């Protein structure tokens, strides 16, 4: 009856959710169709990170990506956007538990968030939860308000990046 080919069933796309859990917290979730150990590998291997951290639709490219994934180890991502100056995101890993938990600081501004990523495997799939804790309500509000006063420059840059993404996704 159904003419669709059975050989390659269209995989259901997993949903990404973002929620502001409290005045200082943002939570991003997504399920991946693979074991935690492989998802973790993709978050901690520079060659693999490069392949997904700056998707084409963002309009920016990842110029460099140095990560030293161990407690106290540093990371630095540099992005470029069509000839304009580069922007860097950097910090330190403060917790590294293979296949289950990564915690890092965001040091590009004085009051950056602390990011915790957990990988929870269930039936061959992995639920990823990324939790960003800002030092104060005002920092997260500032990030969200975008152009409002007292906002660190990096947030403006991030917002610019997100805006670029918003338009390019909207058009596709």
């Amino acid at each position, binding site marked *: 009856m159904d003419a669709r080919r059975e050989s390659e069933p269209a995989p259901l796309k997993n949903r990404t959710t973002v929620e502001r859990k409290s005045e200082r917290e943002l939570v991003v979730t997504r399920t*991946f169709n693979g074991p935690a150990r492989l998802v973790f590998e993709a978050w901690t291997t520079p060659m693999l990170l490069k392949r997904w951290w700056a998707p084409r639709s963002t309009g920016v490219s990842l110029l460099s990506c140095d990560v030293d994934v161990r407690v106290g180890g540093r990371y630095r991502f540099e992005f470029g956007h069509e000839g304009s100056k580069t922007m860097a995101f950097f910090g330190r890993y403060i917790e590294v538990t293979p296949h289950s938990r990564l915690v890092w600081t965001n040091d590009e501004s004085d009051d950056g968030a602390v990011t915790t990523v957990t990988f929870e495997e269930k039936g061959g799939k992995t639920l990823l939860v990324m939790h960003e804790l800002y030092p104060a309500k005002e920092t997260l509000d500032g990030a969200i308000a975008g152009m409002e006063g007292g906002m660190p420059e990096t947030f403006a840059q991030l917002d610019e990046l*997100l805006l670029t993404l918003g338009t390019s996704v909207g058009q596709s």
Partner: protein
Amino acid sequence: MVQHIRTPFDASFAALSDATRRGVLEQLGRADATITDLAGKFHMTLTGMKKHVGVLEQAGLVTTEKVGRVRTCRLGLRRLEEEAAWIERYRRLWDARFDELDKVVEELIRKEKVDGRKKRE
């Protein structure tokens, strides 16, 4: 009540839970108004109306401006809209990243299967 408000969203929902405050928003949607105007329209005391407007203001739904002795209220939806728009942009960024990450994970799974077969041979 106000001290339990944790996020602009919560504040907005709390603000909208009251019929008078919804009425005030409707009214301001038609035209800006002073506190005195609003108090008259809703048959309330000035103090009572000030409280309602205060809650709406805290939620970012209304902005007020005092000129001389008169405080004028107008709709100020921006904060809520901005937050929702920002969160959606942020979600799209991570969704785009995760779509690529899906491909990386798929490839790692395939590679493991091939390597496993090789080992058994």
